[in-house]
């Protein structure tokens, strides 16, 4: 009965601080051995994000989980790309300002030259 002391304790040597995405997906796809399943299920016995997530993910067919995650991440990167493009437009427009100033200077200079040449 010495195993009683192990309740709530990590299995020596096989417990990690984080549940990896690969491990979680393998669990959902039924690719883990009973020992591997038991290791993941240690998280289920706790109360927290992993436990809630494992429970919720049981309701999505395993084959769809990866695809859905991929779609969400793709959307996230799209959103980030839009923000980045917008920011680049604002931050890089110094060249546009320089071009505008140069054109204005040329116009003023041209106007002054024309005026001077008319007077002469």
């Amino acid at each position, binding site marked *: 009965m010495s195993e009683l002391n192990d309740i709530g304790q990590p299995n020596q040597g096989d417990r990690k601080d984080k549940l990896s995405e690969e491990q979680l997906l393998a669990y959902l796809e039924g690719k883990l051995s009973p020992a591997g399943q038991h290791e993941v299920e240690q998280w289920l016995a706790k*109360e927290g994000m992993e436990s809630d997530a494992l429970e919720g993910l049981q309701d999505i067919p395993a084959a769809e989980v990866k695809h859905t995650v991929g779609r969400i991440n793709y959307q996230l990167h799209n959103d980030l790309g839009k923000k980045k493009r917008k920011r680049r437009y604002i931050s890089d427009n110094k060249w546009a300002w320089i071009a505008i100033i140069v054109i204005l200077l040329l116009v003023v200079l041209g106007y002054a030259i024309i005026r001077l040449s008319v007077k002469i």
Partner: protein
Amino acid sequence: MKVPSPHTLSDEELLQLHRTNSDNYWLGQLLQRYTLLLLGVAMKYLKDKEQAQDAVQQIFLKALTQLPAGEILNFKGWLYILMRNHCLQLLRHAGTVRADHLEYVDSIDEPDDIPWKKYSVEELSAALADLQHEQKICIVLFYLQQKSYQQIMEHTSYTFAQVKSYIQNGKRNLKAILLKKHTTGRPNE
């Protein structure tokens, strides 16, 4: 300067890079780490894949636009609470649950804060005997016999949710029994 790979950085380091460089790329990398877990949490509450997917995207948007200026000591915990509260809010708006039944959370419990090793095997055995039958069965099979949930389900014909609930509640009750016995001066001794 060499740009570090996001995979080698901790949550805190990614958050720091996001803040110092004002670059959402780092926050995106950080959020992506939790897509799967967030999807699962949303599914637990909303029970609908499309809604859960939308909820995760909304949480990402919230994180990108409303990240608190102050220090976040536990990003994962912060994200978890954000997701849970968002789901509860959606359920309230949908009228699925009564507002007074909603339990909003602003902090996360520290799991497994009981110092199990300080109890003797006899104390643990006695506490285990005080548990409800179903909880005791599941605790023994899971912790003492190292069975997986699937094996426990086959052995007991309980559902997945029942096994999870019996183990979680059994563990919580075990903790309460042990604490009670300790604070009341170990009446069994």
